[in-house]
């Protein structure tokens, strides 16, 4: 990559709904996908990100800027990530994790996955189904059989009425 001396390089990212965003190259290359483009010299014009919408991209860029401003201090980075994700609902988290996967940002993907897992922790099957809108396509007999197979994993779990 031919970085110009003095001025920090800025990249222009385009979401799939045609919103344009400017972001410092140093922050954007947290995404391995973008970093590869920069290294291959194909980041000169506008970088189209076909799998990310504007709302999600704005959020991801906020994260990129926030985390890259923190010096190498894993504790501080972790607490930034926790705070950044603390007020996000599941729909937003799902958009973020898909974007992180597409952009190949392992730290964000890991943090969002952990956050989603946290929601499921210690919850009954019925609660998780309701929370995430998962349709139970087992017949009652099939469900009973799967439960029976893993019966002991249900020890100590909160039960609720439909479970």
């Amino acid at each position, binding site marked *: 990559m031919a970085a110009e001396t003095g001025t920090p390089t800025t990249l222009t990212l385009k979401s799939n709904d045609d919103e344009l965003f400017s972001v410092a190259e140093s922050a954007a290359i947290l995404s391995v996908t973008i970093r590869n483009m920069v290294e291959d010299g194909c980041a000169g014009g506008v970088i189209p990100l076909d799998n990310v919408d504007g709302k999600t991209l704005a959020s991801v860029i906020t994260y990129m800027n926030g985390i890259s401003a923190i010096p190498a201090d894993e504790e501080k980075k972790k607490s930034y990530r926790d705070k950044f994700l603390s007020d996000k609902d*599941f729909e937003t988290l799902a958009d973020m994790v898909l974007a992180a996967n597409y952009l190949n940002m392992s730290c964000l993907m890991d943090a969002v996955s952990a956050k989603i897992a946290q929601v499921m922790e210690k919850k009954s099957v019925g609660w998780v189904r309701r929370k*995430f809108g*998962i349709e139970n396509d087992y017949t009652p007999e099939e469900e009973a059989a799967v439960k029976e197979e893993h019966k002991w994993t249900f020890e100590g779990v909160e039960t609720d009425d439909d479970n």
Partner: protein
Amino acid sequence: DRISELPQRILQQILYHLSQEEAVRTSVLSKSWRYDWCAQEFHLRISLDDSEPASASLLEKWIPTLTNKCMKKFCLSIRSEHDLESIHPPSVVFEAELLQDLQVEELTLDRKAIDRIIHFKHLKTLHLLDFRIVEEIFRKIISRFPLIETLHVEDCRGLRKIEVNELHCLKDLYFIEYDLVERDEECRSIEVYLMQRWRSRNWVGPSFSVPERRGESNTHAVMCDGFWRFDVV
């Protein structure tokens, strides 16, 4: 629904952050979740104790569950809480065909145990620690783990000779002889036999470590032609 439609790579990442029990429990959510948890790595660490049958029964619950599935990686560590040499690993351990990593500590492995050992085609790491074993049994055990890459043998009473000639995949052999403080005559001298034909196209040779105890070691490496590193730690 959105969560079930996430790519496998992401779902696996989410399951990774759940406890093992919770990951298995997601199989009840719906059909698409039934086997998602199987791609996780599983690590079990269990202490066996005669007075506490629950730990052995936990093992009996876990192993069949894990063995029936296409586990990515299955690691098991079992030890007994007491220095009772009478404790045998439950037979279910020897049925865990998909096991990749087995650590056995302070348990007895004798003829009774080896009769039940099946061929562990996936086992890559075997760590035997602090137990009594005779050479014949050791040899038989080793023969059931043909693809072993890492073999750690530590503080094993009754073992005088280690032959690893048949372990063609062996990359790392780590051996600490039994502490001689109890003057156990039978393990005064231990010979480790390595093979000469550790030569394949990708040959790097195993690394071989024998930490020296009390400045005086009775361990000899015999036929040590062809190993890549010899460490006296």
